[in-house]
């Protein structure tokens, strides 16, 4: 993170080092806590088979969380990512399955559309929250047009990829490591990655230094679209068929995942590795841990929400103490 000193970070840089270390470690610590709780309740699941089943659905969530993270890097919020993922699922289960070329073309067009959206938001200085909320209805509508009732079929190769069982390390863990490493390298270790983060941290400085903000925003939203496409493909590869509502829950999960992973709503402060860990933690906490706890059905919905609030509150409490210094 120290390659370029971003304004948000220098202000906090005075605090003792262990606090910053704790903050950076918090996503990992919460993941370890949730895993520990699951292992304690049901030790049998800590196995190759257990991890494969438990974390299967974390892969598309992690990808959607990264998509959200790119939007949040530019101080924006993408409220349409869930509906977009649902739409991509429908495209993959219909067009991509029938004709690889037409399907691929449509998916590329979707990414281009997302980039154009970013450019529009910058050029007209529109609030992203309004534009993306509007777009969420567009994506949802297109998805229902494409698949009025659940159906379609995931391409065989995609299903085969998602159900591949690599030796020793379960696929979801391998995939998460790979996704996190790629996003981390691109955003944290390349020079243009620093410019992109600067677009959220100090847009004026970046513009004065001669970088196009329009281009930066378009690229960030294009990346959000790209990871949204990956998320939809991964999701439909697991489910085998699509449904217009498949991604609905991803919007809020992805925002929570970015925040849990150490990101901020403003300032271009994001952490790709943290975001992926955040997505894994949320998946485990909300569905798996709850399932093992045997909470009565009337309370399950509330308990799910409570776990989310507790996990996020812990993260905010620690980072605020860091600020108070």
């Amino acid at each position, binding site marked *: 993170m120290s390659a370029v000193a971003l304004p948000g970070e220098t202000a906090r840089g005075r605090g003792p080092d262990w606090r910053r270390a704790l903050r950076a470690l918090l996503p990992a610590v919460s993941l370890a806590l949730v895993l520990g709780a699951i292992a304690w309740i049901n030790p049998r699941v800590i196995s190759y088979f257990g991890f494969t089943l438990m974390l299967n659905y974390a892969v598309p969530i992690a990808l959607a969380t990264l998509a959200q993270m790119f939007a949040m890097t530019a101080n924006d919020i993408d409220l349409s990512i869930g509906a977009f993922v649902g739409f991509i699922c429908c495209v993959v289960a219909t067009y991509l399955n029938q004709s690889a070329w037409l399907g691929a073309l449509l998916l590329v067009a979707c990414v281009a559309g997302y980039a154009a959206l970013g450019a529009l938001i910058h050029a007209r200085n529109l609030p992203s929250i309004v534009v993306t909320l509007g777009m969420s209805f567009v994506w949802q509508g297109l998805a229902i047009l494409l698949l009025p009732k659940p159906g379609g079929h995931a391409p065989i190769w995609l299903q085969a990829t998602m159900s591949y069982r690599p030796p020793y390390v379960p696929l979801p863990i391998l995939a998460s490591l790979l996704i996190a490493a790629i996003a981390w390298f691109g955003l944290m270790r390349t020079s243009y990655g620093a410019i992109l983060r600067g677009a959220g941290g100090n847009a004026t400085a970046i513009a004065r230094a001669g970088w196009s903000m329009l281009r930066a925003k378009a690229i960030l939203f294009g990346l959000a679209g790209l990871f949204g496409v990956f998320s939809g493909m991964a999701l439909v590869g697991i489910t085998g068929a699509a449904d217009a509502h498949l991604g609905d829950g991803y919007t809020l999960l992805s925002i929570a995942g970015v925040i849990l992973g150490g990101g901020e709503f403003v300032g271009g402060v994001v952490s790709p590795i943290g975001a992926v860990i955040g997505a894994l933690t949320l998946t485990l906490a*909300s569905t798996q841990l709850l399932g093992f706890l045997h909470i009565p059905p009337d309370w399950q919905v509330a308990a799910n929400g409570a776990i989310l609030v507790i996990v996020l509150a812990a993260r905010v409490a620690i980072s605020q103490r860091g600020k108070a210094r």
Partner: protein
Amino acid sequence: MKSTFATLALVALAGTALSSAAHADTAKMRIAFSNNYAGNSWRQAMLKSYGIVTQKAVKDGIVAAADVFTTADKEVPTQAAQIQNLVLQGYNAIVIDAASPDALNGAIKQACDAGVVVVSFDGIVTEPCAYRVVVDFKAMGEEEVNQMAKFQPKGGNLLEIRGLAGTSIDDAIHQGILEGVKKHPDFKIVSSVTGDWDQTTAQKAVATVLPSLPAIVGVVDQGGDGYGAAQAFAAAGKPRPTIIEGNRQDELQWWKEQKAKDGYQTWSASIAPGVSSLAFWVAQQVLDGRKDIPHDLLVPYLAFTQADFEQELPKIPTGGVASHEYTLDESKAAIKANMK
């Protein structure tokens, strides 16, 4: 790779699975119920029916456990993760009211591969390895229009209230209604709104379109929306049409009041929430070693007419739905009826 997976699955299950032969009794077996939504009167009644039957089954020692799991949202990925979770917990069978007929197939297949019996009902799944307890929703939609033709022999304009968009049940009932209208060309659907099987949603949706509509003679719907529609017509000061009801207590109560006032006639039908108990017994029977049960079981919908709805009304709790809990013997009979 596949065989490693299967072996691991067996190892993971070994902790609780009973290692006896096929014709075991089910006293030590555990059946889980994966439910994707609990937010309306029908689902509440369905859970209640399931609870009544399964608690007794556990007490009588027929099964060791019958736990209920409801997902926090109506979404497919959450329920798929839940199914995987239930497999990991080592349940012998999973009864499921599914969020999607196709999109859960990946998770269902994993469960089957791990040796878990899967029985779906209401929201069914298309994965061939699972069992389906199916209510003929399409026939129900068609019958709604047939009944409407009895009450409104001259035909006229109909308002359709749809259920949750994008679900298979909504689509099936809708298709049935379209078939019915084709057979009775005097009727014309002039508008279609989304009521989500919920009285308040239906009331709002109907109230929104009413001012722009011509005179409506009848409302065809999917249940859980009839009372809301009646309220919307009354509030708008429009004449009361023939509203098909869906076995809800508030709907039948309203029907009774109207009947007492001026002999109002209509018809009521819905899937009996107690079908969840039938799904439970099917799972139990399969675990008991029965191999002759067809994977697709068709059960009739529950309908009430002018003659018999008032006898049923006192039996339905306020805010509930007319139901019928299956006993083991009734379930065996229902299975037999499907074995031709």
